[in-house]
């Protein structure tokens, strides 16, 4: 299997596993993710096309290292797997971080909880 094809398949399996099994953000089970992905893929067609169209290619792909299947404006089909992995990875990390910061925000306005909060915060201190 060509290397870009193989790496794309690995990346897709990896992000799906992280989302469903390891981190359990479960974005793949949400309507919002699939709507977002659909919108991103639709916009990827002209944007990626602008980068890959063979009459004025900005990014030049070596035919030996991908499936050879080009879609829309000469974009390697693997690019859409790359896009899927990028979108899912980004939303996953954002989701994990927003969970953390939500807990911090909830803790701040309650003076009673400050003692315990500060105990674990070390040099960062209260305020």
């Amino acid at each position, binding site marked *: 299997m060509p*290397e*870009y094809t193989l*790496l794309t398949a690995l*990346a897709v399996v990896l992000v799906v596993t992280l989302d469903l099994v390891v981190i359990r953000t479960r*974005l793949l089970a*949400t*309507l*919002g*993710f699939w*709507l*977002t992905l659909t*919108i*991103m893929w639709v*916009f990827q067609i002209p*944007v990626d096309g*602008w*980068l890959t169209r063979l009459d*004025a*290619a*900005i*990014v*030049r*792909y*070596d035919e030996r*290292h*991908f499936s050879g299947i080009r879609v829309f404006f000469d974009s390697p089909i693997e690019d859409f797997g*790359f*896009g899927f*992995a*990028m*979108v899912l*990875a*980004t*939303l*996953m*990390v*954002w*989701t994990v*971080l*927003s*969970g953390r*910061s*939500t807990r911090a*925000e909830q803790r701040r306005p309650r003076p009673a909880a400050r003692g315990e909060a500060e105990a674990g915060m070390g040099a960062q201190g209260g305020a």
Partner: protein
Amino acid sequence: MEPFHYLLVLVACLAVTAPLEWVIGARVYRRPRRLALTLVIAMTPFVIWDLVGIARGHWDFSPRYTLGLDLGGVMPLEELLFFVVIPICALLTHQAVLRLGARLRPHGRLADEAQRLGGSPATGSRRGEGARRA
């Protein structure tokens, strides 16, 4: 104009998605720390993948359509910016989808996801937020 071809498409992506933050109220740019951390954590593997792709000859970049500012002599500046711009577009789209969905159907599935994933009230643009929350 040709050296700006790559940069221009990135600027276009930011311009097209900007209303999602400032009109729909996505609150992505207004969480700069979370945004920066998300970009570093989520995109580092993809930048490494890109560098591997360059090193293995999977792809290269046309000097005609890029500025010629190659980071470390291998990756055009625009290519690194790609890994900043596209995830921002994805975050703005996701937040906008959740917010619009929640506004359209306040008890619908997207409203529920906005509560769970957004970590803040789903409805409300910048201006209306305080009033609606109170």
